[in-house]
């Protein structure tokens, strides 16, 4: 910022000089050009100690055969961990399973969330709206650990309430979390329950970003609803929706706590996704080298997601500035 100078005799200048003399520390700070860097300093320290150093550590360990519980010293094996991952069919199965989980849970939450978002669009005059929205939005702020825990109770084959209803309605009981064919679908259903409110929130935000004038014009012209959505609502709201879908996708990729508590990846490995698999390789099998290599790969995927997210975000901002 440019320093503003005054003719020496103005009162403003006098008080300015006086203020500067009073606070030598502040003055020293004002004079130094390193001020912006000093401000960033603490964050940089945190960033280096908790991100950069661990990242290098991770990179290093990924070149070793390193089992934490074995007495054998770590052995340098170059790219073998990565080659193993490339060759191992389990890893491809794992990535495929994670991907289909992501697609289904994000797709489900997005569809349901958009529908309900539209439904809640005119909720401005709803009596007790704040309480209703609180109840609606609750699932997404709950600890995934608690959600995974209490769904075990709800879905229990013997005393779970879900089975009480299925028995009343279709006369059959299900082992939702223990059945090989059901566990994956059940995990998705619980995740959709947890995250549909988020997509409702994003849909409401997207709808709120549509200019009122355009909507009124469409109303006056009696444009059919599908056209209204396509030509008026989507062009204005699509960025927020896309950001929402991207955030959901990233979060679905990260999912670890929920399956860990609910199914522990089982039965078999039908609900084991990347996060849980990493946890098991690292902290149950203590294969640090192998886990590090897998972690590096997930890191790259995460960085790709972050770039796409920021691309959409900056695209939206430039567009907003042009208008």
């Amino acid at each position, binding site marked *: 910022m440019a320093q503003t100078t005054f003719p020496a005799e103005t009162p403003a200048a006098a008080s300015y000089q006086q203020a500067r003399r009073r606070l030598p520390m502040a003055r020293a700070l004002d004079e130094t050009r390193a001020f912006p860097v000093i401000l960033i300093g603490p964050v940089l320290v945190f960033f280096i100690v908790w991100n950069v150093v661990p990242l290098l550590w991770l990179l290093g360990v990924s070149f070793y055969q390193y089992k934490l519980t074995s007495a054998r010293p770590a052995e340098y094996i170059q790219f073998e961990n990565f080659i193993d991952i490339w060759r191992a069919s389990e890893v491809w199965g794992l990535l495929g399973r994670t991907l289909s989980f992501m697609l289904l849970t994000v797709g489900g939450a997005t569809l349901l969330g958009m529908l309900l978002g539209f439904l809640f669009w005119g909720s401005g005059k709803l009596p007790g709206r704040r309480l209703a929205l609180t109840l609606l939005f609750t699932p997404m702020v709950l600890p995934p650990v608690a959600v995974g825990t209490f769904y075990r109770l709800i879905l229990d084959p013997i005393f779970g309430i879900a089975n009480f209803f299925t028995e009343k309605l279709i006369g059959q009981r299900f082992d939702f979390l223990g059945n090989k064919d059901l566990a994956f679908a059940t995990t998705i259903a619980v995740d959709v329950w947890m995250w549909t409110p988020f997509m409702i929130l994003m849909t409401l935000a997207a709808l709120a970003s549509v200019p009122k004038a355009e909507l009124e014009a469409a109303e006056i012209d009696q444009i059919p609803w599908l056209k209204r959505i396509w030509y008026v609502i989507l062009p204005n709201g699509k960025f927020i929706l896309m*950001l929402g879908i991207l955030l959901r996708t990233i979060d679905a990729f990260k999912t670890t706590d929920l399956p*860990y508590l609910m199914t522990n990846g089982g039965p078999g490995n039908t609900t084991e996704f990347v996060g849980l698999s990493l946890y098991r390789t690292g902290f149950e099998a203590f294969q640090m080298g192998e886990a590090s290599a897998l972690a590096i790969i997930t890191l790259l995927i995460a960085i790709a997601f972050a770039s796409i997210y920021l691309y959409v975000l900056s695209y939206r901002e430039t567009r907003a500035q042009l208008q």
Partner: protein
Amino acid sequence: MNAHPWRQRLYHLVLWVVALAFFMPVLWIFLAAFKSSGELVSPNPVFLFRPTMDNIIRVVQEPNFLDYLRMSFILSIGSVVIAIAVAFLAAYSFSRYRPTGTNFIMFLLLSTRMVPAPAVVLPIFLMYTALGWAKTFHGMILFYVMFSIPFSLWILKGFLDGVSLRYDETALVNGGSRLHTMFRVVLPQVKPGLVAAFIFNIIFVWNEFLFNYILGGQGTTMIPVLLATGVKQGGMTDWSFIAAISFIYMLPLILAIYVFQRYLLVGMTFGTVRGEV
């Protein structure tokens, strides 16, 4: 829809039904916290029962529970206060001086929050073990500070970018020092950002499990670990215990959503989308 009051009433009824439908599973657990253990695991779900406070009392009397709950409060509030203080300084610099690399650092920080938790905790665990920081209080809280910084920085920078440079200029011209400008003139303008960053970071740390499970130890454990080990230890799960803990631990979250509903959007989108619902 104003023309048909009954239609509007029906519409409002539908909205309430949807909201309640989403809340049902949570409500079921809340009810479970007040049931006797026999009612809780009965094959025929008990809908009407005499509420009992036994579970809550039993949980509160458990010495571990109070310690863990206290740690949940200390770790989440303590780390977020440090993170926001540190993030505000950096956000001010990024917003006002735009030093080279601003966008790059912001990008890197954002991507650190998009990595699956085990991939984050793995190298930290190796580092902490080597440095002897594992299971220590400062190791835990400083880790959570780092965990909270990216979000705080993004949210605060977004809000600071929205504060006109005129504020800074006026303050400097009138003889304020830079620190005065930052804390007395600009800081009050971003109060909503501070509140949002504060609340949602606390929620994220409050809900966090894996980092605490791996890096924490005696004296730094929070409630989610207690919940997880309660289910995982094998044998019969003590469901009334779990339900009572869940009730106590989730109630503040629901309260926070009610009180701070305005900040929900900005909070859940990492500060990248602003607005109110």
